[in-house]
């Protein structure tokens, strides 16, 4: 059934009639219960958002008007049937809501936590046109997925009869996992190769536990395993084994989702001082290697005056981590104003509540160190907003001669990443842009080497979990068609 057929079902009609639209829009948007800000700014692992109660969720679900043309769905990169899952929550059928999510999203508990909803589903909600707050689709998604997981009654998606065709995913981040889930459903024998010792990619090494607990990622992975997906850790495709090895071994399609790679630096003086590092390094130490845990052998600096350079989600994750590791002053240094910040609104809000300093319209131009080569100060150029640039955001312009010298003992540079160079380096005939991203057909995700499909950050250069998942799903669909047309 498509969306309108679903919408025409009797129970949906009944629900719609149960309440007037005006009554629905008059309900105020739910507030996500969260840990106390002072308490959580010292708690490294506890999740900040506590999740909605069943009552809160059902009440929030009432706000949804169950539109005939749900614009929210247009905003979702994986096309979740949003009104159907929301209305299932409204009628109290939480399992069915979770099932609806899983039809199109491999990782609903993850997406409910990390998607930039205000730019996607919620950004297109009809309520906004009526000057009301959007339905909290993200919170509801999380509620349904958590409910199912905690009920212990997790539905494993139906898997088609095995077709005995082997296909591979390179990388076990959101793109690889979404791809693996869809291909397993279609009956393929799926092997996911992961370079690190843990499965989950950025969901494990990048996003901190206070925002996305590892346990939730692990449940999603177990779910895929019970669908028959195999995982191989500690295997770098392009190094340990080659694409050619995979072909020789009978793999009929390979989805490359090797993710982000080399961190970008700004090429300014003092950037290689001790104590200046990339957000990838900082977060990998703390998240993947658990370096702040005394039992871990991996060291991490616990700076008292920490500056994070950048205004994206990774910058927010880093600065809030620094605060939790004991920073007395944890700062965001961002060259534009808060309005242009790419981070999710909720992350900015949480960061502020946790006492993070926002030095917007500031840009580092030099780091200064002591005799041991440890960073002690940063020199910031003060900026102002000028004309809009290519990205449509007002561009930051230097205020001549206006600088500030600020004491720091740790700097985390979070200004983006370049794609991982390993696969592009090792596969002949692969078309690669000057930025190092793999060129694919935008509809099919197929590369210049037909057996290779690609998606996620290796194609986009740096995007979001949900866009990577969308790529994985599209690649699965078109690889399936391609393999069948070749058979």
């Amino acid at each position, binding site marked *: 059934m498509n969306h309108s057929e679903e919408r025409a079902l009797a129970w949906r009609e009944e629900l719609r009639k149960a309440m007037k639209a005006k009554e629905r829009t008059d309900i105020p948007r739910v507030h996500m219960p969260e840990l106390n800000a002072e308490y959580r700014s010292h708690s490294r692992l506890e999740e900040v958002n506590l999740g909605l109660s069943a009552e809160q969720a059902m009440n929030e679900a009432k706000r949804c008007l169950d539109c005939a043309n749900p614009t929210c769905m247009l905003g979702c990169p994986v096309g979740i049937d949003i009104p159907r899952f929301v209305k299932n929550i409204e009628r109290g059928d939480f399992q069915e809501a979770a099932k609806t999510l899983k039809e199109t999203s491999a990782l609903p508990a993850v997406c409910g936590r990390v998607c930039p909803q205000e730019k996607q589903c919620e950004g297109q909600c009809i309520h906004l046109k009526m000057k009301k707050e959007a339905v909290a689709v993200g919170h509801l998604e999380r509620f349904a997925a958590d409910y199912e997981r905690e009920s212990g009654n997790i539905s494993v998606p139906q898997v088609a009869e095995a077709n005995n065709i082997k296909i591979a995913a390179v990388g076990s981040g959101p793109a690889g996992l979404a791809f693996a889930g869809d291909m397993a459903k279609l009956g393929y024998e799926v092997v996911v190769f992961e370079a690190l010792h843990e499965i989950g990619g950025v969901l494990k090494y990048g996003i901190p536990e206070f925002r996305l607990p590892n346990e939730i990622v692990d449940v999603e992975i177990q779910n895929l395993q019970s669908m028959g997906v195999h995982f191989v850790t500690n295997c770098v495709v392009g190094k340990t084994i080659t694409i050619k090895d995979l072909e020789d071994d009978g793999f009929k399609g390979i989805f490359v989702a090797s993710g982000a*790679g*080399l961190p970008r630096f700004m*090429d300014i003086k003092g950037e*290689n001082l001790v104590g200046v590092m*990339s957000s990838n390094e900082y977060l990998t130490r703390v998240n993947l290697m658990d370096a702040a845990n005394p039992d871990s052998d991996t060291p991490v*600096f616990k700076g008292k005056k920490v500056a994070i350079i950048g205004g994206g989600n990774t910058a927010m994750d880093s600065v809030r981590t620094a605060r939790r590791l004991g920073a007395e002053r944890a700062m965001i240094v961002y060259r534009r104003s808060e309005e242009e910040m790419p981070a999710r609104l909720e992350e900015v809000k949480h960061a502020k509540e946790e006492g993070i300093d926002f030095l917007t319209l500031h840009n580092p131009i030099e780091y200064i160190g002591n005799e041991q080569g440890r960073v002690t100060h940063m020199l910031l150029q003060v900026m102002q907003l000028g004309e809009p640039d290519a990205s449509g955001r007002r561009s930051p312009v230097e205020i001549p001669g206006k600088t500030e010298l600020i004491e720091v003992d740790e700097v985390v540079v979070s200004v983006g990443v370049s794609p*991982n160079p390993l696969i592009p380096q090792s596969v002949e005939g692969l078309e690669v842009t000057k930025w190092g991203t793999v060129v694919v057909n935008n509809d099919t995700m197929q590369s210049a080497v037909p057996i290779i499909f690609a998606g996620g950050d290796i194609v986009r250069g740096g995007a979001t979990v949900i866009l990577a998942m969308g790529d994985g799903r599209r690649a699965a669909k078109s690889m399936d068609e391609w393999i069948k047309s070749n058979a």
Partner: protein
Amino acid sequence: MNKIVSKEYFSANVIKFEVEAPLIAKSRKAGHFVMVKVGLKGERIPLTIADADLQKGTITLVVQKMGVSSSKLCALEAGEYITDMVGPLGKATHIENFGTVVCACGGVGTAPMLPIVAALKKAGNRVITVIAARTKDLIILEEQMRLHSDEVMVMTDDGSYGTKGLVTNGVESVINREKVDLCVTIGPAIMMKFVSQLTKKYEVPTLASLNTIMVDGTGMCGACRVSVGGKTKFVCVDGPEFDAHKVDFDEMLMRLGGYKDIEREENEQYQSTLNK
């Protein structure tokens, strides 16, 4: 999980392991390294591959006990398992017939030099290997080096074996004696710095294999960055070998010392738990 097939003590603190890793054994080339992690809460550390046996499906690693992570690895016995190992990583050494090559190595740096010496010899080079260590007991792999080198020169700081002097004295004596087309150096950063200074003076092109701090080792974290010719490079994917004359060794030494205090503390803790 990779099984340790054999363990051999080169000295009290320098240990040779043969480890089961058939895929790595097959794909590795001279110059490649692996990332190794011991225990669930272990640290990922880079180790250059010293040798491989295709038939047995093993690779050889030579490890010096330094801090917590290398001590934990060295405490493993044959039959036990390394928790995680991934590789081969980095770019392989560029091998061709250069003419006469001096391979200058010190300490455990001698181990990763062995496959390079063998490959250079096989490519038709005249290979002169200079092995240096503080004292006789720390000289390793001399016999194997002799198998693949035209000449092996042994240097010890205290004169207990070979010629008394530093690795640079050995290299300089070769340069003064005959035309050298290339120098390759692997060892402690400070040693490579001085080899590089020396060969720069004589205008002998030199490659240094750098062993920096790494976290993932696959081009993600940037902990391993070094300045080469004024540009930031990543040892794990751009290296580990670079034109030694362009490497900013002082910056590299400074960065290598970055976690010294934390590491010393952790090591003291670890050693005290061992003594209990």
